[in-house]
């Protein structure tokens, strides 16, 4: 069916009655253009809700039934303006026309009552009303005919390919996923009947093989041995089946790894360079951080060192020298006074030299100070000996405050600083030099970092270098691993098959006479039938994939014909049983360099279109509805998509942010465009967070 119009009343952001929220469509491409947040996706929801009674919950990324969505279906502005106690109704009306020009009006209604400011009492479910236009008026269609009419608007099995959002394209056409490819193949063919045939043949083959084995056992000269061998053969066959499965799995995994290696190989050079630069960045950043920490510590340490390393005493040596002079004078005066008091002049203080040295002089019979000989008993010897017997002068009564110990302590303390003070200059200089080195190092490394950043910018592509290198390594390892496993599988299979043949030979040797010909023939026939069914199914499947590939290539060529940057053709590379990978290859069949996300989406959209434009020509009978199909596509590629859409579909309705500006809409002249509606979200209060103040304006614009 072709869609003539859609209108909404207080549905989601579409506040107001049907007269404000109606969009009329014609054949060709019908565009609904608007910025993000303008209401495009809600319009897509309206199409979906009126037919399927479900709405897409963007938070949960899933379709939910009306009973779970309830008053959320209704415009917030309408709910806000609704007085407590009143009921509010939301409606979506779709008018469709079938190939015999019969017009149907499909209306879905949901009601809810406002009980309190935020409390709503809604109906459990929505109500569907379908009317047929007869001559001059709409006439209600009985409920039992509803589903068949809805199925004619868009057949359920086609829905995934005819009604989709841009973000679903990837998963819809993920042919690595066996079920996605089979879903498309099933749509295009009766291949499931071949699967049924294979099942029947297998059952027959198993049964006839069993009958044959039983018959052979009956004729055996050693039934026990035959039974054992039959059991052994069954076990071997079971192992063969299991090993076959393993081989299939490993083969698929190896092919996938190879595909990913091919895909990444073009990006790896840049990625390796980037990864290397990142490693350098990491090292440099760590060095800068460490240098900064050391610098900070050193700078903070400057103040600490003034006291812990006595740097503050740096210039005090001359003052201390003055103190030493003053102390010397004091000491002389002090000693003189003490000596006078004791009527004895002590040239040397008591215990100077220390007694231990005096004893050594006596033992050595010489004076260590003047070097003269002092033989035992000589005057010199006695003079030295007297040094030991001197008595300490009694000083305590001489002074009111004897400060000699205190002053000596002060003097000794300062004297001990002499070496420290001498080295302060050197230490401070070293520290300043160290700070200077750190600052230079930080500056130099920061410069290197900047240079790396510049090199980064020169390397095109998004920054996933580490992932790419890592991914590449992983796939390479996987490929090696699965290749080895495959070799193991093949060797084991060969050995198992040999064992099976030998086992069968040993069983046959035990047979006395001949097995009934019918039984033997049945076994052979079913076995052959099985092979025939499997290969026939394989051929049909391969032919269908080729047909799909061919159709998709025609559309892919249409889409890319005006874009010289995309060359090559689409190839569905067989991975293993019932799974394929879509890729772009050159004329020699090699995967093309630079296949980016945009190209992949183009391929997938080509495949979608190939499915619906195939033999059944669904594209001529049904409307394609898509929300932001070009969302993952570079702008320069989207033009080809719209061109192909116009050429292949009788009607399409596309919600998009392409062509929002008048300048962009000039390009539409070359496309088969039906209508263009511009939708805009309006917040009269200016607060874009306030959805209770939101309505949408719909304007049909000139192309």
């Amino acid at each position, binding site marked *: 069916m072709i869609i003539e119009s859609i209108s909404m009343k207080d549905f989601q952001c579409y506040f107001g009655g049907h007269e404000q929220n109606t969009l009329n469509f014609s054949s060709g491409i019908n565009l609904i253009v608007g910025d993000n947040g303008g209401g495009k996706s809600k319009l897509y929801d309206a199409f979906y809700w009126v037919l399927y009674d479900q709405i897409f919950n963007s938070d949960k990324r899933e379709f939910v039934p009306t009973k779970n969505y309830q008053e959320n279906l209704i415009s917030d502005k309408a709910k806000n303006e609704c007085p407590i106690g009143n009921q509010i109704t939301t409606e979506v009306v779709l008018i469709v026309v079938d190939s015999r020009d019969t017009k149907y009006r499909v209306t879905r209604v949901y009601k809810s009552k406002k009980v309190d400011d935020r409390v709503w009492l809604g109906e459990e479910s929505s109500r569907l009303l379908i009317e047929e236009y007869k001559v001059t008026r709409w006439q209600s269609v009985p409920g039992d005919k509803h589903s068949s009419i809805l199925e004619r608007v868009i057949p359920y099995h086609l829905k995934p390919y005819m009604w989709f959002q841009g973000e679903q394209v990837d998963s819809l056409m993920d042919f690595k996923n066996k079920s996605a490819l089979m879903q498309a193949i099933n749509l295009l063919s009766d291949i499931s009947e071949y699967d049924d045939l294979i099942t029947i043949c297998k059952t027959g083959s198993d049964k006839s093989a069993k009958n044959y084995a039983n018959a052979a056992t009956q004729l055996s000269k050693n039934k026990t041995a035959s039974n054992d061998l039959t059991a052994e053969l069954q076990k071997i066959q079971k192992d063969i089946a299991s090993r076959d499965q393993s081989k299939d799995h490993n083969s698929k995994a190896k092919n996938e790894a190879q595909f990913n290696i091919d895909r990444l190989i073009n990006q790896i050079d840049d990625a390796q360079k980037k990864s290397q630069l990142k490693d350098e960045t990491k090292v440099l950043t760590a060095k800068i951080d460490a240098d900064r920490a050391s610098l900070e510590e050193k700078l903070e340490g400057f103040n600490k060192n003034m*006291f812990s390393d*006595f740097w503050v005493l740096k*210039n*005090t040596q001359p003052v*201390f020298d003055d103190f030493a002079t*003053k102390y010397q004078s004091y000491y002389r005066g002090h000693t003189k006074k003490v000596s006078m008091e004791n009527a004895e002049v002590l040239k040397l203080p008591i215990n100077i030299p220390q007694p231990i040295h005096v004893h050594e002089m006596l033992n050595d019979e010489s004076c260590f100070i003047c070097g003269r000989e002092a033989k035992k008993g000589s005057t010199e010897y006695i003079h030295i000996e007297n040094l030991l017997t001197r008595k300490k002068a009694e000083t305590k009564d001489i002074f009111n*405050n004897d400060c000699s110990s*205190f002053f000596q302590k*002060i003097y000794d303390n300062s004297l001990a600083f002499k070496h420290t003070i001498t080295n302060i200059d050197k230490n401070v200089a070293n520290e300043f030099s160290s700070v200077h080195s750190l600052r230079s190092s930080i500056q130099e490394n920061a410069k290197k970092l900047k240079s790396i950043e510049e090199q980064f910018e020169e390397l095109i592509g998004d920054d996933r270098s580490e992932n790419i290198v890592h991914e590449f390594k992983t796939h390479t390892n996987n490929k090696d691993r699965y290749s080895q496993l495959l070799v193991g599988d093949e060797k084991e299979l060969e050995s198992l098959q040999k064992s099976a043949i030998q086992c069968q030979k040993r069983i046959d040797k035990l047979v006395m006479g001949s097995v009934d010909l019918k039984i033997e023939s049945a076994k052979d026939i079913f076995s052959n039938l099985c092979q025939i069914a499997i290969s026939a199914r394989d051929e049909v499947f391969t032919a269908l994939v080729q047909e799909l590939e061919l159709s998709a290539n025609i559309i892919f060529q249409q889409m890319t014909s005006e874009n010289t940057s995309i060359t090559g053709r689409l190839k569905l590379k067989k991975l293993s049983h019932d799974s394929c990978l879509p890729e772009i290859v050159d004329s020699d069949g090699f995967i093309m360099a630079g296949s980016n996300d945009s190209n992949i989406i183009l391929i997938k959209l080509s495949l979608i279109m190939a499915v619906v434009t195939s033999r059944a020509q669904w594209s001529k009978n049904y409307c394609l509805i898509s929300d932001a199909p070009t969302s993952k596509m570079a702008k320069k590629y989207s033009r080809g998509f719209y061109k192909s859409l116009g050429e292949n579909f009788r009607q399409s309705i596309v919600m998009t942010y392409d062509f929002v500006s008048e300048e962009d809409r000039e390009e539409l002249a070359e496309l088969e465009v039906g209508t263009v509606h511009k939708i805009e979200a309006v917040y009269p209060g200016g607060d874009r967070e306030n959805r209770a103040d939101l309505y949408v304006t719909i304007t049909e614009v000139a192309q």
Partner: protein
Amino acid sequence: MNNVEKKIYKLKPGYLVGFEDLLKKYAQFGGGADDAKYIHGRSFSNVYEFYMFAFFIGLHKNIAMDLSDDDSLKGFWEMENWKPKEMVDHLIACALARSDFDMLAVQESDENGVASEIRKLKRTIESYANGGLKYVSTQVESQPTEAEQDDFFIKMLV
């Protein structure tokens, strides 16, 4: 410890009240671990550190402030509590060198005489320390940006 020594260590040299803001800006008043104090961004972990620094700067630059009894000086903590002890003793040695303190006479003086000598020492310490504070204050005013740097004080010694 004799009377003179005791009295010297009990000294509480003062600073001119006008320097209080300067001291508070660069020195931590009150307790707390040293590391924490430096983290708070103050250059000196105690007032006595700043005071000793000011003394030695005054000495180095030969700026002795002429103080009189009319000047309002504020003492903060007895010298016996200042650290490191060796530095305090060195400060005393330097102050003895630069003052008229009579090392011989003080030994024979009575209480008044001792007090008089010790006053001389205290005044010498205060004179250089406040001279140093004045110098620091001038540097801060003339180089406000440099004054925020960690090496601001060490550079005064160089």
